[in-house]
């Protein structure tokens, strides 16, 4: 049971990450591979404040969002000049730079040693050491973020985003400031990722830079491609699948000395098959 609760918490965190990235990639059409950086910013903010000061979890959450907003604003402005594949490469470069900061700004982040001893949230008298309570918190945040995203997508703001995705020049001709829209959704998505990061830091109680590298951004990208671009429910399904699959594979009886490698092989083959037979993802509505 504990195991399932743990997996559910991880699932909630990654569902938040998937939904938020889908806003940028699926709806606005911007291929961003730097999501892990904002995830990390939220995580490190919470970690540093919870271990070095009296500030509590929820305040650190807000602070994490604030920092993510500022940084995403800066990055978003620089990236606005890039198009298509170059945009992706630019975000990839930024992920690398922010990772390097996590790794080398030893005074703040303790570098590769990581930050241990992060406490769980404190709210009234709820014992968040009990994972079930933490799960409820995570799910509540997931629901909030999911419905906020739905709201954004279904608003006129969302419609403009989709128009930008389809044909940016056309919509610009109509007088829409496309830069503003792209920037705004990038910032919103970064803020949500930071929330996931804060949750992660407090749950695992230890973070280190290795959790926020490019591979993590690729993992989140895979979640939304599997789930289906431009479909929020799909992202949730995608997160469920990608968190559960490696765990399910733990129970399949492979011969023990090559067990782990066999699981990796199965994982890779599953990805290939899914792309071959369902390239639009589980419930995709949009193909680039």
């Amino acid at each position, binding site marked *: *049971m*504990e*195991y*399932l609760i*743990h*997996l559910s918490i*991880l699932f909630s965190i990654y569902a938040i990450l998937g939904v938020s990235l889908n806003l940028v990639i699926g709806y606005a059409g911007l291929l961003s591979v730097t999501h892990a950086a904002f995830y990390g910013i939220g995580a490190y903010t919470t970690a540093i404040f919870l271990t070095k000061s009296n500030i509590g979890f929820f305040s650190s959450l807000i602070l994490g969002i604030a920092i993510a907003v500022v940084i995403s604003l800066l990055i978003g402005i620089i990236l606005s000049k890039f198009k298509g594949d170059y945009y992706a490469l630019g975000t990839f470069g930024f992920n690398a730079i922010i990772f390097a900061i996590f790794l080398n700004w030893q005074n703040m982040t303790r*570098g*590769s*040693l*990581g930050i*241990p*001893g992060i406490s769980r949230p404190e709210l009234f008298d709820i014992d968040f*050491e009990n994972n079930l309570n933490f799960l409820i918190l995570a799910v509540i945040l997931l629901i909030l973020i999911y419905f906020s995203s739905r709201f954004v997508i279904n608003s006129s703001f969302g419609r403009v985003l989709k128009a930008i995705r389809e044909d940016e020049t056309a919509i610009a001709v109509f007088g829409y400031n496309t830069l503003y829209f792209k920037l705004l959704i990038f910032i919103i998505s970064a803020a949500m990722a930071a929330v996931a990061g804060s949750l*992660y830091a407090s749950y*695992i*109680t*230890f*973070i*280190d830079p*290795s*959790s926020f590298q490019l591979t993590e951004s690729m993992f989140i990208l895979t979640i939304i491609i599997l789930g289906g671009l431009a479909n929020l429910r799909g992202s949730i*399904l995608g997160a*469920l*699948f990608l968190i*559960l699959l*490696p*765990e*399910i594979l*733990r*129970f399949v009886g492979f011969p*023990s*000395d090559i*067990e*782990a*490698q066999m*699981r*990796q092989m199965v994982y890779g083959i599953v990805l290939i098959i899914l792309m071959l037979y*369902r390239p639009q993802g*589980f*419930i995709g509505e949009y193909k680039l």
Partner: protein
Amino acid sequence: MNKSTKLVIGALAILAIVAIGYFMSINTVEEVSVEEVSVEPIKIGMIAPMTGDLAFMGEGIRDAIVLANENTENTKYEYEVIVEDDQLDAKMSASAANKLISVDKVDAIITFSSVTGNVVAPIAEQNQIVQLGIASDANVAKGEYNFIHWTPPVEENRVFIAELQRRGITKLGIFEGIAPGAAAVIADLREQLKETDIEIVTDQMFNFGETDFRSIIAKTKDSEAETYLLLAFSPELEILAQQIREAGITTPITSIEGFELSEQVDLFEGEWYVNAADPTGDFTDQFVAKTGKSPTLGAANGYDIFNLIVAATENVTDTTKPTPKQIASELTKITNFSGALGNLNVDPDGIIVSNAAVRMIKDGKPVTVTE
């Protein structure tokens, strides 16, 4: 929702149900299939990277632990090892630990690396399961249930500096690979060197995974180092040593804990170094006999940890099955234990202390150079 979507969701749901059913059944099956033994086996979980860049280290540790299990005989209890991969990824370490604790109901977990150790330690403490980490970060040993087994840098440097002084070396060059373990060793080395007249004339750093050291080697050509300390492990260690020789540098090389673990020991023939190890070389011989390869970093530690758990568990009396709390308690009482890393003592902070010694590769084999 269209038909195919329903299909996919259905498939997922079925997968999930099958998975839940499977591991629920594993629990019951295990209890039934334990034969006439009236006592449940002691289950020891192991979390290490079994895939990815460091898979060879995880494999080495697993082989060492399996070897230790095979060598264990005439014990009161049965010992069972369950291996889980974490790819050195924090979230997977947490999942592996949760699975081992709630599904497999392990009594102890062996972890590898400071990252994994730091993630699993609080989980172990909360669930009252023993955790022994092959890690250098003392934080991993925090708590009643947590221990680490790694030769402390202080000890290794003490022996290292003594040997430098014995050989009259005053100028030292360093090549260090960036990793938490190395950083701790160098920081302590600099501290201890302040008391001596030994000078660090050059300190070249490189990243984990580097294969081209030629330019940083070129930078040291004019240094006056009398010996070079290579703080690295396979594969960087061998490539670095080879490229140093290819560059025409004949200065002696030394290491802390690196040479013995290499498959290409000829590179280090005649060179002395500092290591924590059992002088009889017993573990290494057995490991090579079993796997055909030399032990990797941490393998000897894994071997010792398994044996320590067995020793501690066997010491528990008056019970049909020792609890982790009792095992942890017995562990702290262990002194003068003979392990692959030499003579071991467990200190009250949960740190398993081993002694370092000066060794040398002679005719392709490590031998201890007695003081």
